[in-house]
């Protein structure tokens, strides 16, 4: 009986202490190691506040001119057609079913000009006299911030961004800043840990990490139910 009681106290204490300690870990620590300036040359001033990012070039696009990637909590679809580009987050039905609907982004230039949901290469050229421009992304539907979108190319090699695009050397970088993701990341991390969906973690490691937590939760539930039923 005393052992069961001790097990109950241990399980409760373990769950609470684990959640508290994990929440206390600075979320910024998750973002380092994959800053955009490590994967491709870019002015650090453009990238320093990105916790996570995805970059791509024309070569990464499918035959239909699309590139799909996961960034933050969403799956994104980038589309290119005849000198224009669009970006949107997949809207999933019931959390997993995608019927083709997108939460499209509008591109706001550094000068504050709203380029709308369709950004053309011509607009990029006028916004980026030095070969780099960083647009702020906002959801057309909700107005929420969806990070930043950086376009850059080597201006000494290609005066025109259209030429850089054709040569697959017009780099597109979509980044989410620390301020946008840091507060939600630890919460999302705990949930993904419990659901065996930790990003960039082998499944076996995830299982090893989560088994004690689930075992504790089950033990606590079992103990409470047992104590509530007098004849067990």
């Amino acid at each position, binding site marked *: 009986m005393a052992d069961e009681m001790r097990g109950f106290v241990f399980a409760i204490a373990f769950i609470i202490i684990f959640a508290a300690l994990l929440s206390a870990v600075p979320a910024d620590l998750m973002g380092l190691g994959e800053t955009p300036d490590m994967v491709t040359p870019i002015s650090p001033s453009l990238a320093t506040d990105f916790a996570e990012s995805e970059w791509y070039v024309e070569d990464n696009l499918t035959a239909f001119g699309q590139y799909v990637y996961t960034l933050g909590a969403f799956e994104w679809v980038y589309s290119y057609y005849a000198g224009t580009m669009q970006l949107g987050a997949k809207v999933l039905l019931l959390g997993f079913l995608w019927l083709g609907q997108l939460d499209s982004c509008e591109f706001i230039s550094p000068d504050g000009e709203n380029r709308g949901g369709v950004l053309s290469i011509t607009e990029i050229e006028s916004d980026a006299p030095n070969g780099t421009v960083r647009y702020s992304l906002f959801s057309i539907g909700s107005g929420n911030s969806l990070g930043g979108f950086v376009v850059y190319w080597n201006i000494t090699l290609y005066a025109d961004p259209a030429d850089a695009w054709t040569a697959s050397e017009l780099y597109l970088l979509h980044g989410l800043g620390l301020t946008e993701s840091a507060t939600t990341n630890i919460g999302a991390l705990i949930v993904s840990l419990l659901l065996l969906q930790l990003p960039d973690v082998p499944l076996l*490691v*995830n299982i090893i990490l989560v088994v004690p937590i689930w075992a504790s939760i089950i033990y606590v539930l079992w103990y409470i139910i047992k104590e509530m039923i007098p004849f067990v």
Partner: protein
Amino acid sequence: MSLEDWPAGLATYFGINETTAQLLLSLVVICTFLFPVMLLSRGRNAPLIWLITIFFAECVVLGLGWLPFWIMIATVALMAVAIAFLGSKTVTGG
């Protein structure tokens, strides 16, 4: 060369892959913190003190991008087990 690039430099120098270099350097940093603490701390609660030291050392190497984040989760889980074990023993009088 910035601190974040050290693993890449070490990997190039020794001809090993970058992950191994990251682990090696992380081990050096963690042991630098841990060994003096191990030497100084004695008694029944010493492992908890070691775990806390490892936690802080891991914060440093994680901040430098040398270790994956799940290592930190594993350490946090171990710390929680150790603290909960001590706590439950104290509360239940074991």
